[in-house]
């Protein structure tokens, strides 16, 4: 588990921000493309545990706010709130359950999209459009969570693999 304030982490955040902001649209499928910053929060929750997820979520949210050009702090707040819930879920979940990481990542990404939709456009949109956007969030969540194994592999390589079993043993 790396120190959060380190060149390695800051550089990784920047790379993910650039990937999310510029490169990933090249991989879109029907206007849906994945978000590595959200996957990084999931990765932090799964590999590093509770305290660090919130920090990662904060910086990821802030970067998303800066990338998006909207109100700074909105995504950061939502993601930090969701990261707290994610931490809680990860502590309670059965890790041996097949596909559990995929399901949790899917739920996290979907909730991030849905929550943002709710906060930004609540009451302003016709219901049909809301359903359409929710479907798009679900597709984004599916696409993003499908990349979790790849992201795990890359991030483990970047930061060095941490043994989850040993971590749990001394918890």
């Amino acid at each position, binding site marked *: 588990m790396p120190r959060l304030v380190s060149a390695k982490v800051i550089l990784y955040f920047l790379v993910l921000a650039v990937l999310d902001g510029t490169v990933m649209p090249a991989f879109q499928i029907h206007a849906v493309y994945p978000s590595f910053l959200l996957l990084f929060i999931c990765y932090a929750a799964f590999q590093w545990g509770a305290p660090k997820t919130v920090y990662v979520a904060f910086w990821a949210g802030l970067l998303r706010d800066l990338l998006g050009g909207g109100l*700074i*702090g909105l995504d950061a707040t939502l993601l930090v709130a969701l990261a707290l819930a994610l931490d809680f879920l990860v502590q309670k979940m059965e890790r041996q359950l097949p596909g559990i990481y995929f399901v949790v990542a899917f739920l996290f990404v979907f909730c991030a999209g849905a929550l943002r939709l709710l906060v930004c456009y609540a009451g302003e949109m016709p219901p049909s459009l809301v359903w359409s956007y929710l479907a798009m969030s679900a597709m984004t969540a599916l696409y993003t969570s499908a990349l979790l194994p790849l992201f795990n592999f890359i991030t483990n390589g970047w930061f060095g693999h941490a043994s989850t079993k040993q971590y749990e043993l001394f918890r």
Partner: protein
Amino acid sequence: MRRWRSYYFLAVPVIALIAFFQYPRFNESVHSIFSTLARPAFVLGASLREGFYTVRYQSGNFLDAVGKQKEYLSRIQELEGQLIRFREMDRENLRLKKLLNFSLPLATRTIGVRVIGEDVTPWKKVVLLDKGSRHNLKKDMVVVVPEGLAGRILEVEPYTAHAILLPDPDSRVSALTATSRAQGIIAGIGTDKLQMKYLALDAEVEIGEDVTTSGVGSIFPKGLLIGKIESIERDNDGLHLLALVKPSVPFSKLEEVLCLVLSPQK
């Protein structure tokens, strides 16, 4: 205490959110600074994206081309099949034109029929025609092609008819040599040659002379070309000359023929 630190951390973005909401100009300034600082990274990212787009669309085009290749191949096969049919129709058209040109100067009415079958016995030259009594075909109607006499109708069914061609061993036609005016009987021998039997010993028949129908009998009209004399010899009993005749009609290539509608007295 450490656990609560996470919750305290939630306060930081909330405060930032409230602050930026309260001061929109500050929000814009931060965005502007971030965009300026991050610009080189985004330029690099954009060029990467262009590369990925290129790869994606090129591979898409490649896959599209691979997919279309199968479609085009099947289309080529289909068109080649059509081409073969069209060529065949073209040849048929030429044959029919020739047949039509031949039938126009004939003084009699004709019925065009198609050869649709042949006798399986190698030496038998009986063909099946695609018209019958329902199309006014009658027994003993004369069958001709532009090259000359082909045979006659042997049997008539409602929708088909059988015609016996000159090379059939059972075929007999009264004939006349065009120059020497020697009379004889043209008989088939089951090969691509015909025999002209019962020529008088003193007949001055020459090789290469045309042989036509004599008009004797009630079936064949006079003057239809049968072929050319190829060789002459005495027959086995020595009482007559026997000529070998090369038929003018290509019997192995018959596809369409004309049946002459003649009045009984003719």
